């Protein structure tokens, strides 16, 4: 009896040990962002202080500097505009495409859908050279609008695939009933399919937005003037003067940009996984 409880205690301890390990592994860099962004410089750049906690009172100095002395607010606005435009382009093209591939084109649709999805796997590092020429031809070099043009190349395939899964999971009888009642095919799509797939559309909006926030390679390649940068690029490359990194400001900026994405992912994770696997596995 006693031996069993010892084994049990050992098991429980190692289990919670594993939980702690994964928790610390995943969360520590973000804790580090948080504490760095609120520390005074004197506290930050000292090898004798214990780095895990405040040795001097917390300060908002880095956040103040970020908003008053850098283009941080501009980058935030740029990212917001880019996200909004790319989301609009993606919805207008991917929704009908996904509906068509799920409902209207039969066996060919399946193959075409896989084909579109595969383009999502074509990496930016393969296309950035020719695309920078395309961007130059369009007169958009060094402008955030180049990103509005280029980002749909990965959001459209991704969202078409995601929405295909949602449309396939919807019973076709609803639209059929609408058509029998005198609705046109187009009307059935606009009046029945779209309202009924609102949860899916919301997922697409959230993920298009986060994909544009996460993108780094195209932004780095096409945009070099500070005022045109999106937030990820600005924080990662623009807060360095010569060899000096402004760590407090960099971490504060990274923190602000990370929070909305982190919340969105956690709220929509299950739908996202259902979308990805729903397209691939029946």
């Amino acid at each position, binding site marked *: 009896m006693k031996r069993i409880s010892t084994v049990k205690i050992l098991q429980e301890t190692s289990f919670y040990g594993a939980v702690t390990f*994964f928790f610390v592994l995943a969360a520590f860099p*973000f804790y580090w962002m948080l504490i760095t962004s609120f520390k005074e410089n004197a506290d930050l750049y000292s090898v004798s202080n214990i780095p895990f906690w405040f040795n001097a009172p917390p300060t908002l100095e880095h956040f103040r500097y970020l908003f008053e002395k850098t283009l941080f607010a501009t980058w935030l606005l740029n990212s917001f505009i880019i996200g909004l435009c790319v989301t609009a382009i993606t919805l207008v093209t991917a929704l009908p*495409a996904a509906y068509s591939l799920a409902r209207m084109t039969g066996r060919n649709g399946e193959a075409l859908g*896989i084909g579109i999805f595969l383009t999502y796997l074509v990496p930016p*590092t393969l296309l950035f050279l020719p695309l920078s020429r395309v961007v130059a031809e369009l007169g958009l070099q060094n402008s955030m609008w180049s990103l509005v043009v280029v980002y749909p190349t990965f959001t459209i395939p991704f969202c078409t695939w995601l929405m295909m899964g949602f449309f396939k999971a919807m019973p076709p009888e609803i639209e059929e009933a609408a058509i029998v009642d005198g609705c046109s095919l187009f009307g059935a799509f606009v009046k029945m399919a779209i309202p009924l797939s609102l949860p899916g559309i919301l997922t697409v909006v959230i993920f298009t937005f986060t994909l544009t926030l996460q993108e780094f390679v195209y932004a780095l390649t096409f945009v070099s003037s500070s005022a045109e940068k999106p937030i990820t690029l600005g924080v*990662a490359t623009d807060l360095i003067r010569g060899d000096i990194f402004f760590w407090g400001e960099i971490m504060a900026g990274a923190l602000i940009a990370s929070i909305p994405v*982190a919340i969105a992912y956690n709220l929509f994770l299950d739908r996202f996984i259902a979308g990805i696997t729903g397209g691939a596995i029946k």
Partner: protein
Amino acid sequence: MVTIGESVIRPASRLRFILDRRDVLGSFFVAPAILYVLLLVGVPFLMALYYSVSAYTIYDPSWSFVGLENFEDIIDDPVFRQTLYNTFIFTFGSQILGLILGKFGALVLLRRFPGRGFVRAMIILPWAVPIALATVAWQWMFDSLYSVINWTLIALGIVARSDAPNWLGDPTLAMLSVIVVNAWRFFPFAIVIFLAGITAVPQDVLDAATVDGAGFWRRNYQIIVPMILPIVAIGLVFGIVFTFTDLSVVFLMTMGGPVGATSVLGFQGFQTGIVSGDVSHGAAISLFMVPVLLVVVIAMLRFIRRREI
């Protein structure tokens, strides 16, 4: 009946009639997406192919054909061979580490315990947060002077301050660092994929195996792993493609250094094609990704097809 009706109605209605045909409207619906992708992925890909066999640079934008000269040049370059080798090490190192962490993380999260929702939310973060920002946080943690990792090692008495590791300054440690950061970024995705697969395994199959005497490991490796293999394969395809072609982690953490020790294909393509303006050689370097991508994509297609049968 239909032909008579059609000849009477006005052109506007004729358009409606055409749009009511399932296949026609279907093509209209799918055309914008396909056009967009063809114009901005298909055409640039062909351009990249042509760049790689031309003498194109930003200083001399001629399209003269030079055959396979660019490829010969880069294969002869020891820096490039090192880059190719690095790319494989970087990809497989971080994928294996990520998969191991993912598998065990999934086993941990499978069990119910108080606070599981919160722990899961925090574990998702490395994958959710923009990689460029997380990489910068790691760069700060690996700082040569104020590294929190070194501070901890010194405080625990594992290393002396005088010979504390310079994570991003030593070739081996720098490679290890970028691998760890990339594995760190992918393991939450692996956990999520494993969890989705494991929860899809029917409980009665597991119960039947338990009744037949299968223990924990046997259930794990002879039932669960084979059953979740397809979904894990899809996750792995994502992981390999995005790691093999990565630029952000290396660019922000090490700039390919020290002395090319962490240079990978994406990074060198960027340095050569964009920074130095030697577009043709840059394109040739980037195209070395294509064979790997093709293998991965074919493997994925076969998996999808097998699911359908």
